[in-house]
């Protein structure tokens, strides 16, 4: 950030940066540190087999979760794809419920049934956790439809990967958002790759053009800069909340790790050098730290204290997940239908044979 003040060491500590109070800035830093430490813990746990299945981390993309979601209200909604740990936490899902979910435990935010790709907490407006690339775009427009139908003033933020904009569902959804002027913000976490495919190989246009067919305004934001992202979303959310209609945001970021746990960090599709350069120069936490240090809004000691605090929290989270009970076997059948009809058989494997008139 070029605009930061030159700091005079003798001045009393600065109290603000771009309108963010010192306290708020510390909260933001704490949040991003938590996401980072939390996902590092996930990587450890995955390596020793405590977590299974597909697992996708946000390491390197922490500012996109903090900057986009922390401006929201509790009544607002977030919906995302399968890379969603930090987004869930940002929206208010307890970190331990996320970790327990990855451990497949009953205390997980999806009761151990969903796993890493299917995190849910309806009470705080975190609407999943969806595994079919692009599908959440259509669900999001439905949530937004519901908000407008009831004349509420919530908004929906729908996350998509850069590769998801090539799905028809995305275009169908964006068009409906436009024609009904619905309160939904499509935030592309544009980390440049869909698995091993660079965005430029699957699009001839810039990301910001992807909403052009549908007349939805587009904004580009540096997703490695948490304050820029935050301010942009704060403004867009306000606009959408007050009837301004849908928005499309290209949140530019970079994935420091492989696509999922089984994917190497670099390889055939991107070089070691590329990743190293990004990690060295565009780590959102380092960038934010530098901003805060330069503006004299945080000291090295404060940073270390925060980091130590989140490490303790993450250890507790992991202990919680570890010690939590497995789901009951009955969960297998209890969560297929919310309404077990009075008549007839719902399960064709004999499960409810002999019950009701099954």
């Amino acid at each position, binding site marked *: 950030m070029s605009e930061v003040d030159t700091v005079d060491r003798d001045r009393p500590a600065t109290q603000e940066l771009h309108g963010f109070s010192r306290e708020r800035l510390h909260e933001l830093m704490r949040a991003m540190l938590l996401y980072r430490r939390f996902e590092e813990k996930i990587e450890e746990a995955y390596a020793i087999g405590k977590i299974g299945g597909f697992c996708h981390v946000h390491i390197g993309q922490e500012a996109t979760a903090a900057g986009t979601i922390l401006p929201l209200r509790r009544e607002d909604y977030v919906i995302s794809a399968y890379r969603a740990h930090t987004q869930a936490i940002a929206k208010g899902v307890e970190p331990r419920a996320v970790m327990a979910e990855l451990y497949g435990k009953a205390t997980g935010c999806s009761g151990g049934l969903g796993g890493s790709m299917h995190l849910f907490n309806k009470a705080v407006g975190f609407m999943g956790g969806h595994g*079919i690339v692009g599908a959440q775009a259509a669900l999001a427009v439905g949530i937004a439809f519901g908000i407008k139908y009831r004349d509420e003033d919530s908004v929906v933020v729908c996350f998509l990967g850069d590769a998801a904009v090539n799905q028809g569902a995305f275009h*169908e959804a964006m068009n409906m958002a436009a024609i009904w002027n619905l309160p939904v913000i499509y935030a592309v976490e544009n980390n440049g790759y869909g698995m091993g495919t660079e965005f430029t190989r699957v699009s001839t246009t810039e990301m910001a053009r992807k909403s052009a067919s549908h007349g939805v305004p587009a904004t580009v934001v540096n997703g490695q800069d948490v304050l820029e992202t935050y301010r942009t979303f704060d403004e867009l959310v306000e606009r959408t909340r007050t009837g301004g209609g849908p928005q499309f945001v290209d949140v530019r970021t970079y994935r420091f790790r492989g696509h999922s746990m089984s994917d190497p960090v670099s390889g055939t599709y991107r070089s070691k050098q590329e990743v190293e350069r990004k990690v060295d120069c565009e780590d959102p936490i380092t960038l934010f730290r530098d901003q805060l240090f330069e503006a004299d809004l945080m000291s090295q000691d404060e940073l270390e204290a925060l980091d130590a605090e989140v490490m303790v929290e993450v250890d507790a989270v992991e202990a919680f997940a570890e010690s939590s009970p497995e789901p009951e076997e009955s*969960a297998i059948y209890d969560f297929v239908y919310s309404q077990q009809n009075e008549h007839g058989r719902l*399960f064709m494997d004999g499960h409810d*044979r002999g019950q009701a008139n099954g």
Partner: protein
Amino acid sequence: MTGGRPMAEMTYRDALNQAMVEEMGRDDSVFLIGEEVAEYDGAYKVSRGMLDQFGARRVVDSPISELGVAGLGVGAAMVGLRPIVEFMTFNFSILALDQVINSAAKLYQMSHGQINVPIVFRGPTGAALQLGAQHSQACETYYVHAPGVKLATPATPADAKGLLKAAIRDDDPVAIMEGELLYNIKGEVPDDDDFIVPLGVADVKRAGDDVSIITHGKMVHVALQAAAQLAKDGVSAEVLDLRSLRPLDVDAILATVSKTNRVVYLEEGWPYAGIGAQIVAMIQEEAFDHLDAPILRVTQADVNMPYNKRLEQLVKPNAAKVVQACRKVLY
């Protein structure tokens, strides 16, 4: 079924309309969305007058975006609305199947019961007349194979009204498969706002002793024709209309099997992994000793539907084929 209640004669189309109107009247969270449902009154005029009555907030013309519209419906249901998504025909819903199978059917489980999806998908399934291969498909199998969705297939105006109302009130995704060739048929419908036909209850549409014709949807009428023909030759056929394919009234199936010991399954769709295949597999498992003959299935020929009128008639199931199958199971 309807004992003593006041009845009104109406078409299947109007019965569906009435079901929606009544349910929208009692619950503001119910809305209708689909192609041409509002200003055009529905491609088959099922939603006639509803735009006028409920306005554009609750009767919504959609773009031709089946996948997106189904997803929109599911999303709206996730926050507590009760959408009725009309597919102009279920043929087009194959485009939307991902949202049916991967969202509607799975959200309750993936969210550990936090999010239920009270949505109705409805529209005609199966063939009409000379619409060719892409517009003449019975889609039941695509909606029952994966757990998480319920499915009913009303054959009469009363069932249309009662099952659609049950579906709208159900807290899970329910598909209601109608028939283009059913919309004009008339029948008595209970004149009662609270008349519903619960999901999971089959209906003996004609009682008989010698052979059971089990069927669903539009084919109920073909079964009744066949039963009438058989009666002329002194064969007493029972016609069991499953009405609801999930939940499935297995008790009623087993009851008719143990009564007649001879079964024909009649369906409009293709045989491979059809509804009949499932019913046959269940019957032979659960009533093996009651069967005096193999169960035969009468289905659409296992081919794409031709446009030519005569060929189309040959491909479709009909009463003659059912009669023949009944004679065969009777030896």
